[in-house]
């Protein structure tokens, strides 16, 4: 079951704060995040990896789709 958040256009630190809150709620599973800046991509990736999640980033038309998944299956 995958969930999705769109944090495009939000100012720092709201993208990472929003995603962190969602990950804390989810505990495991897959979260798809749409971001529009390199800063948000880096911040969210660093936060997710540091808290034990896997992150896969795909660039699409100057924006990014982050697939954040729990390491435990």
């Amino acid at each position, binding site marked *: 079951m995958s969930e999705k958040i769109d944090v495009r*256009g939000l*100012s*720092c*630190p709201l993208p990472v704060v929003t995603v962190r809150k969602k990950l804390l709620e989810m505990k495991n599973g897959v979260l798809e995040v749409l971001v*529009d800046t*390199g*800063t948000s991509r*880096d*911040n969210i990736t660093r936060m997710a990896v540091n808290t034990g999640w896997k992150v896969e980033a795909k660039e699409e038309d100057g924006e990014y789709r982050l697939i954040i998944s729990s390491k435990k299956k």
Partner: protein
Amino acid sequence: MLKKIFCFRKYIIFTGVFIGISATVLQKLGNPANMGICIACMERDIAGALGLHRAAVVQYIRPEIIGFVFGSLIAALIFKEFKARSGSAPLMRFVLGFLAMIGALVFLGCPWRTLLRLAGGDGNALFGLAGLITGILVGIFFIKSGYNLGRNQRTYPLVGWIMPLIMMGLFLLLLFRPQLPSGAVFFSSQGPGSQHAPLFIALLVAMVIGFLAQRTRFCTVAAVRDVILIKDTYLFTGVISLLLAALVSNLILKQFHPGFQGQPIAHTNQLWNFGGMVLAGLAFTLAGGCPGRQLFLSGEGDADAAVFVLGMIVGAGFAHNFDTASSPQGPGLWGPASVIVGLIICLIIGFSMSDLMKKKKEA
């Protein structure tokens, strides 16, 4: 791959060290004492050069500010991160920039100079640092309460180019120094405004800083905020590196003079050193980043950050014209009152643009 390498911690450490050493060396080369780099002071000097205020000792078009934007622009273009965007409460950002400058000029420095003053031995900066952290903490309270300036929108590329073009205009004024009948462009003949490192060295160093900071997302306010808000020490590492590098560099260059009295471009009124930076710290946090970060963002096409910078420059003009800025003798006549009013405005912004107001209505 190149995009990824700048995310590693060693690059933020390198950026902090580079800024710390550069600032102390720029001071050695002519910039004012403990003010090798100060975003607020340097934007204030630009405001003076343009005649937005007439404090004769602080008027100079600082090439460092221009270089920060150019460096960030170049990095953003190379790494394909230049994105014109706008529309996230720009007028509110102008107000926050204005108030941040009012607070910073009561303390006499931005977050960068707070660290550089500490690294130069200025004990008064401890009160400014305490104020800055307090302001950031209040800002975090609002962020945790749902504070949000709204989403920006992608817009025409030209909108993102406006700030770099303004900087190009300033650079031409600095280079050709036209003298108009009004007296503009104003350049100080004495005082801090007359003290500066050679133009092209300052510009080049600032461009390298702008480039590095755009890649590493260096931000002195987010450094503290992220540790508390999301338990992330990445940016904090960079800020500590800046402080330590500047301290060591000052010791080597014999620019370290510990004490409270007679510190350069500083005053000893600790209440308002603290209070000024509470206001600045809160305004920076509500706007999403320190004044350096706002310049770097404006270089990569963020027109809202550019509006914040313009708010700071106008705020500097106001601060000197309306006697809210401090001098080495102490706070200006209206300095304390302006800090109190500024804090009230920031609190209203924080409450009214977060979920706190909604909760109150629901109750």
